[in-house]
């Protein structure tokens, strides 16, 4: 058998709190028009590769739990150099764990900075060689590289925006 403990006062308190929230500013960001700054260390939805620094050691491919990186190295008989022929990443299979970035001993692989990377065709998700280079439209995130992280804009935090105060 249960009893009302407080004669309706609890309900009145609840109504007061809801009314107070009506008068506060809502925590909403209107997405395409207003955007928040993502974290400096975001593990974005793509990989950025640096052809100059990569040696083809394939440590990243070994570290990837999904096996999403494929590397083929061969001798270039024209100028007698041993180079990386193919560096192919299946971004659809990637889980953005960042283990490849941590594993690379030469700082040749980075996580991308943005997350709005949807493609129209399934084949576009597999990227190779020159598509993976860094450019203005493919910025690099500071994950595991604090020197790059310092140059990126600061993250917008919800704690800065709204503060609840009682009375």
């Amino acid at each position, binding site marked *: 058998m249960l009893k*009302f403990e407080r004669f309706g006062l609890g*309900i009145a308190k609840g109504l007061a709190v809801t009314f107070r929230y009506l008068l506060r500013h809502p925590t909403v960001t209107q997405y395409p028009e207003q955007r928040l700054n993502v974290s400096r260390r975001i593990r974005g939805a793509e990989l950025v590769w640096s052809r100059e620094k990569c040696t083809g050691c394939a440590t990243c491919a070994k570290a990837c*739990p999904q096996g999403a990186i494929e590397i083929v190295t061969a001798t270039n008989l024209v100028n007698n150099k041993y180079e990386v022929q193919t560096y192919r990443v299946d971004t659809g299979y990637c889980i953005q764990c*960042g283990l490849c970035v941590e594993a690379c001993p030469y700082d040749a692989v980075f996580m991308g900075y943005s997350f709005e990377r949807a493609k129209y065709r399934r084949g576009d998700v597999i990227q190779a060689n020159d598509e993976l280079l860094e450019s203005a439209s493919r910025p690099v995130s500071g994950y*595991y590289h604090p020197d790059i992280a310092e140059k990126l804009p600061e993250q917008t*935090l919800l704690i800065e925006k709204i503060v*609840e105060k009682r009375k």
Partner: protein
Amino acid sequence: MTFSTEPFVLNFGPLHPSTHGVFRIKATLDGEVVLDIEPVFGYLHRGIEKLMEERTYTGGIPLTDRLDYVNSMTNNFAYCLAVEKLGGIKVPERAEYIRVIIAELQRIGNHCLAVGAMLNDAGALGTPFFYLWRQREKIYDLLEMLCGQRLMNNYVRIGGVSQDIPAEFLPAVMKFVPQLRSFLDEYDFFLMQNEILLARAKGVGILPPEVAINCGISGPVARASGIKRDLRRDDPYSIYQRFEFEIPTCEEGDCYARYRVRIAEMLQSLHIIVQAAQSMPPGATKADVPHLIRPPAGEAYGHIEGPKGELGFYVVSDNSIAPYRCHVRATSFINLSALRQMVRGWKVADLIIIFGSIDITMGEVDR
């Protein structure tokens, strides 16, 4: 003519607005009263334990993220504890402090979700849920600052954490703590004496302590029934001996008690975070452990006090780069075994709120 009734079977199917994940309950009802239930699960089975045998030790950490997806880093933490026990690896001091702060932040986030979901099931159209979710969004922002992702953080490594914390992390955490305190004040004002909530949740779904001990229940569910058991006190792991905190318990064991215990635990976690942030030493954040480690052959069980209860990993190694066997002692799976006894005799509406108050994540139950 005599008046008789017949019980019928109602199926709360896998896709249902209130089962937390894909969980199916076949309930035998007599009118509104629940006579018996038969839970059916397995709809989210992904074979994680088998997959861990095919990945290296470090490569298995992203997989553990996906077990209890509500608080990913506690799973990472428990797994790394087990492997560190296997390999005899010592974790540096700064990494221990960081791990404690993260574990307590995950505890707060999990309780926000659990309380919100239980109240959502009770019928408050999502209002308490939205208010709590805003606090969880603040925690997401903090975690994103640390490791780059909000949910499947892959931050804790064997031997420490993956990178050092950024300079703005601790000031942000210190700013978050008083905000959460004043929010919980207002939230208690909002709901603690609400008569309808009291009528729905007080005295409903009582779990007697003997049943809880027999079924192996742990976590806030057990503490709300009066069992004072907390692994941070009874079997201290990491550096929990250095912090002062209380273990909130209740005597009744009903849904309202579980709600109160979770709110009280959130306040205690804030206390621990403040202590850890004030005394964090400088130093290395990861032991000098290779990426592909090869621990000596043997077995180890590493367990932590997760937000839902005792979460344990049993790892067997045969001196190769991948574990020979990795078994997860999943909290939600064990906590679910008492559901039938808690629910029989109550009504349909109570079944939903009792199920919500145990706080189940199907990722753990089905693995």
